[in-house]
């Protein structure tokens, strides 16, 4: 049984209003509407935009009661998640685009095919699309997890022989890196 999983972190960037969407003039109304929409869509607490002498800030609630619906990183504690939306804008500025390899199943994560074998990959290694990165054992079955992109292993996020849950990020791959 083989399973693949690699999700692009692009979903988090959408919260970022870039220059092209900024108003020229007099589009105040449209702009505020747009920001409110963004606020709603991303369940943000506050959104502030400053551009060509114009500054717009939109804020909602104390945030205390608002719980994000869709969570991109299950397994993290609730407190961490609340921080995410705040980080979103900052992270989006950094135009980094790492690919996350997440576990498609619940099971036990292994970095190597057997206890005495070498790991499939180490941080810094270059990998090819389709290359096996690790095994997740579930129900006595070994599921090989492959990379969906070419790139460099930026970070290994799980510890070998420990349980992982569905959607838990296992690797960050930098697809822009070349050997």
């Amino acid at each position, binding site marked *: 049984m083989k399973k693949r999983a690699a999700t692009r972190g692009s979903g988090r960037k959408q919260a970022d209003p870039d220059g092209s969407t900024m108003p020229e003039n007099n589009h105040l109304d449209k702009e505020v509407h747009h920001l409110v929409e963004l606020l709603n869509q991303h369940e943000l607490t506050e959104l502030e935009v400053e551009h060509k002498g114009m500054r717009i800030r939109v804020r909602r609630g104390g945030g205390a009661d608002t719980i994000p*619906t*869709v*969570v991109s990183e299950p397994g993290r504690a*609730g407190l961490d998640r609340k921080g995410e939306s705040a980080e979103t804008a900052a992270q989006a500025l950094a135009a980094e685009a790492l690919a996350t390899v997440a576990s498609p199943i619940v*099971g036990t994560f292994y970095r190597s095919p057997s206890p005495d074998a070498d790991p499939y990959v180490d941080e810094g290694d270059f990998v090819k699309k389709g290359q096996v990165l690790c095994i997740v054992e*579930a129900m006595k079955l070994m599921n090989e997890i492959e990379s969906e992109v070419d790139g460099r292993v930026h970070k290994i996020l799980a510890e070998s022989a420990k349980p992982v*849950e*569905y959607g838990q990020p296992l690797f960050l791959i930098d697809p822009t890196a070349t050997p």
Partner: protein
Amino acid sequence: MFKKILIANRGEIALRVIRACKELGIRTVAVHSDVDANSLHVRMADEHVCIGPADSSLSYRNIPNVLSAAEVTGADAIHPGYGFLAENAHFAEVCESIGVRFIGPTSDHIAMMGDKAKAREIMARKGIPLMPGTGELKSEQEALESARRIGFPVIFKATAGGGGRGMRVVNKEEDLTRAFQTAQAEAKSSFGNDAVYLEKFFIEPRHIEVQILADEKGRTVYLGERDCSIQRRYQKLLEESPSPVIDERLRREIGNVAVEAVRSVHYRNAGTVEFLLDKDHNFYFMEVNSRIQVEHPVTEMITGIDLIKEQIRIAAGQPLAYRQQDIKLVGHSIECRINAECPDKFTPCPGTVTRFHQPGGLGIRVDSAIESGSVVVPHYDSMIAKLIVHGQNRDEAIARMKRALDEFVIEGIKTTIPLHKRIMDDPDFQKGRVSTGFLERFTAGPSA
């Protein structure tokens, strides 16, 4: 006793099971889909494992992922709640085979009770009074002959069925052919099995069910009846115990039949025997539900027995701590199901609950995994809370439910609270004069 129980469910029933485990000193593992990561049942559990995406077939119904979660967390038992995997005989079987205790009946009993036609046959052989009806129908001709014998109106039901799907009422002979075909097609598409059977259809019957508990040694008790006559499209909306039309003698009679029904097949753990009660107080066996039910709290309120704890104790091999004569029914209890849905039209209404404030005080119980800020996602059942009251008698219970419904604050989404208020104000309901057709008057709109 178990050391750690995994709860293979979500929402209020997952929280209900976690509460029972905490009170028993058992550690808990919540599983959840990714959209449920911040749910109350996840936060209240000792451990939690994400088992898949929102689609329940890939998460809550995903047997390998659920069992992997039990494996990696070292859970020694699984409580399935209701729905999802609760009546999946295959799941119970796999649990048994890998040495994780399934908290419920055996896989054989689940399979036996899951095949409604077969269950009826078994009960008929044991002398349990059945609705006039048939076994699985082989042909249209057989259906026609059976219908003539039983007498119209009749109803088609799917043998693999439940929840009102695959059901068709036929009032006269000329409508039978089309109804037969439609019922088969619906059964096929809903359950992957087109087998249907026929039953006598009663006008204005009551839905009466009996809660039973059976331990591993076979000691079996009944815990009074629940009256679930207030239904909408075969979905229960309000339940009460005791039934306003059942007296002590009839209660004992139905209770004994229910105990006989499950004891005859050596059924174990909690179960519910459903009956139809006609106007003359004749009762007919319908089916056995081999799970804990949504409406179990009304039984808990009048017996003082925690049914989830009993399920766990029985699964752990403990004997029932009481006999039939020890069970006393005290007062009256009503449960209103609070669903996230548009009033009158009954369409689901997901969204964010911007404010949630429960009613409180004497005789009030709320079972819900909702809190201010919770997001009601569109992927699952629309029931978001159960409001249960207990009073010294039915009148007090109704008065208490009225004031509790008035107190309940749920903002951001539409719910069935207004509908329940109208039911409480209905003179027929107040007199206990309801049948499974009762709610039809409300579906036509507020002024009907």
